[in-house]
């Protein structure tokens, strides 16, 4: 085995990096792969809580980097999904506790034992981001269809390409097809036109994400979650499967479309 290291980043905070990392890690494990997720957001850890593993933390990434434990001891094995592991971030340190070189060393140690290493990047362009991107073979950019998120994503894409970690691929998150139809939200094509990178997938806005975070069960593990389905599809695409984009069009009747026209006065 030799793992592919995928870093999930965005620039903008709150657009869904941690949710995506949790769900893609679980999604890949559900397809039989050996996956380790690493939370690189030192000081503000969240991947543990989104994955529902917060009560199992004994050692974390910083302990492993500083030699206070063996790397295996910092790995939490998910009991629900075979092949899924988490290395949590430290909560009481900050991004300076780890260097980009440390991250490369950690990933090199993990590569022989895993199919995928997914790294949850913090927001921003500073040390935490640099740490997260240093070991990457592939970079996934998460954005929402909003002006500030897309602008920040553009900056990140530029930095990723300048550091020869490109080409990055895009996930458009929290799309609301009803708002797109009303002309109140950018759609996926608008975002791709502007950012000009390849699209990996689209995830619709879905309340089930909040519920799944409340419960600590990634949405991919739920049958009735549209967002979960989208993340399962993206996991498949990461494995090279040819999965068409979900139909995210909100159904409209002829009458609705006429009244939309009238409303634009």
């Amino acid at each position, binding site marked *: 085995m030799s793992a592919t290291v995928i870093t999930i980043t965005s620039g903008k905070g709150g657009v869904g990096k941690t949710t995506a990392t949790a769900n893609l890690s679980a999604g890949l494990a559900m397809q039989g792969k050996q996956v380790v997720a690493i939370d690189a957001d030192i000081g503000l850890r969240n991947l543990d809580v989104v994955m529902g593993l917060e009560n199992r933390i004994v050692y974390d990434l910083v302990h492993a980097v500083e030699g206070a434990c063996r790397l295996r001891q910092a790995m939490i094995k998910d009991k629900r999904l075979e092949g899924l592991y988490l290395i949590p971030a430290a909560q009481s340190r900050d991004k300076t506790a780890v260097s980009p070189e440390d991250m490369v060393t950690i990933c090199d140690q993990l590569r022989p034992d895993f199919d995928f290493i997914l790294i949850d990047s913090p927001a921003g362009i500073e040390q935490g981001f640099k740490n997260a991107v240093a070991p990457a073979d592939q970079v996934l950019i998460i954005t929402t269809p909003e002006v500030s998120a*897309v602008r920040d994503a*553009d900056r990140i894409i530029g930095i990723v390409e300048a550091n020869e970690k490109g080409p990055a691929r895009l996930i458009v998150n929290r799309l609301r097809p009803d708002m797109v139809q009303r002309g109140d939200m950018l759609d996926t094509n608008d975002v791709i036109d502007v950012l000009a990178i390849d699209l990996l997938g689209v995830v619709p806005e879905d309340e089930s994400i909040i519920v799944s975070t409340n419960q600590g069960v990634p949405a991919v593990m739920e049958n009735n979650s549209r967002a979960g389905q989208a993340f399962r599809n993206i996991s498949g695409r990461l494995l090279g499967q040819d999965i068409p984009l979900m139909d995210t069009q909100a159904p409209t009747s002829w009458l609705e479309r006429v009244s939309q026209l009238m409303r*634009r*006065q």
Partner: protein
Amino acid sequence: MSWLNTLFGRREPSSREVAKNRLQLVLVQDRVNMSPHLLQTLKDELISVISKYVEIDAHNMEVTFTQSKRQSRLTADIPVIGPRSE
């Protein structure tokens, strides 16, 4: 009578269209790190350099940054009136 405008296809742009236009403009600036003020300075300097060689119609000159894929381009469209008047 704004419904007439709708009938003839003239309507206010949706917030989605506004957002896309604004994004395209702001990203062009972000990518080359150039404010509108700096662009004007660039334009003024271009006028003075080119005017040393040919006479140009500075008022109808256009200097723009455009994007294709992730490649930025600076385009100067300059009407040339004739040789430099000695």
